[in-house]
């Protein structure tokens, strides 16, 4: 059992070191949050391009004005969220570097838009 404990201990120490390194990379984000809203109607984002300030957390409100559910999804924003028909969803985004971030409705992939952070 001593051997098992030593082996587990070694692995635990290595894992802990890795987590500490990862944790050290987490930046504190006690910043003001910006709010942005986008709607979906007739399977189109309105507007198709939304703007938000860079480097501050963003609260993105998605209003689905269609009766069918939609799934807001973005690879570069790294989020996905299902919004029920005639419903609303709120997505909290990390502070974004300046740039253009595409998003789409995963249930209707021709429905596309972009968030521009600057």
């Amino acid at each position, binding site marked *: 059992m001593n*051997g*098992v404990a*030593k*082996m*587990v201990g*070694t*692995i635990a120490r*290595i*894992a802990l070191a*890795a*987590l500490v*390194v*990862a944790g050290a*990379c*987490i930046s504190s984000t006690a910043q003001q949050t910006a709010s942005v809203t986008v709607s979906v109607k007739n399977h189109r984002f309105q507007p198709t391009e939304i703007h938000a300030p860079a480097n501050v957390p963003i609260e993105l409100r998605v209003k689905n004005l269609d009766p069918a559910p939609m799934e807001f*999804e*973005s*690879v*570069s*924003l*790294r*989020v*996905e*969220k299902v919004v029920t028909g005639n419903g609303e969803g709120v997505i909290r*985004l*990390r502070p*974004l*570097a*300046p*740039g*253009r971030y*595409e998003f*789409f409705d*995963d*249930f209707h*992939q*021709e429905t*596309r838009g972009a968030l521009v952070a600057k």
Partner: protein
Amino acid sequence: MKPSTRLSVDARRTLKVASFRIPIPNALVVVVGALIALSDTYSACAQDGFYEVETKYIFGFTEGSGVGLEGEKEFSAESIARIGKADGRYWASETKLEYEFTPNQYVQFELGPLVSAHVIKNVTDLENRNNLAMSGFFGEVRYLVLERNASSPLAVTLSAEPEWHRIDETSGTRVTNLGLELKVNADLELIKNRLFLGSNLLYEVEGTKDPDHVGAGWEKESIGGVSAALSYRIIPSVFIGAEAWYLRHYDGSFFNSFTGDAIFVGPTLYAQLGPKAFMTAAWNAQVSGHDIEVPGSTLNFGEFTRSRAKLKFAVEF
């Protein structure tokens, strides 16, 4: 675990080149063709072109930096087969039945049971075996430390994967094995949404309790490795590419005693099968290697196999 099955020097010197061949490359061509056709149909349905893509699975054995999307869950079956020793017939595969989820925009978790299969016949220093078993459990945490953005095409993720095995990966015998795999997963977008360069740095440590059942305590070993992979998106839903791995094996937890190395190269494939499903495949052949117990060896069959293959199917929900 591999040292438990290391061949004696004399045995290795008498080994002949294996006559055993698996016609997998031919089968792979057929499967790849079918998947590309299927994916092409999907692409046509998707109407449009080369949108942003998750890079985690586009490089074969090399893992990209992707950590998924916050709120996303995925179930997948990922099999890795190690095929061919110096003689006889050798097939050892391990399948992860994997549940993956991303709780926020930086961290991803994976966990699940492992299933192993061994088909071993007339391999020097290994018992003949033909079995399938639940072989252990794994978990993984991935943390994105550097994200790609408009001013930087580079993304980097750190990953840690602890594993517990009750079946020896190489020989298929009952063991108690604990391991930890640490990786740096980096990728670089060379052409927007089309061409990516990936690279991994690997440190893997594991210990097997008395593998030879002689009261020897824990036998520890470690592997260091580095990879480079290139992946090109030929149609919106299909990436093809190639990768190379250089692996070094040591006895001891921290690269204590070098025992051999190997270089693997081979093709990779990633295909999006639908909005919520994808597959990835890779084939690596050992093209160069050295086993310190076999002077003059040009391939290393002590710690590695003639080739290895990876096949993964995943469904997101």
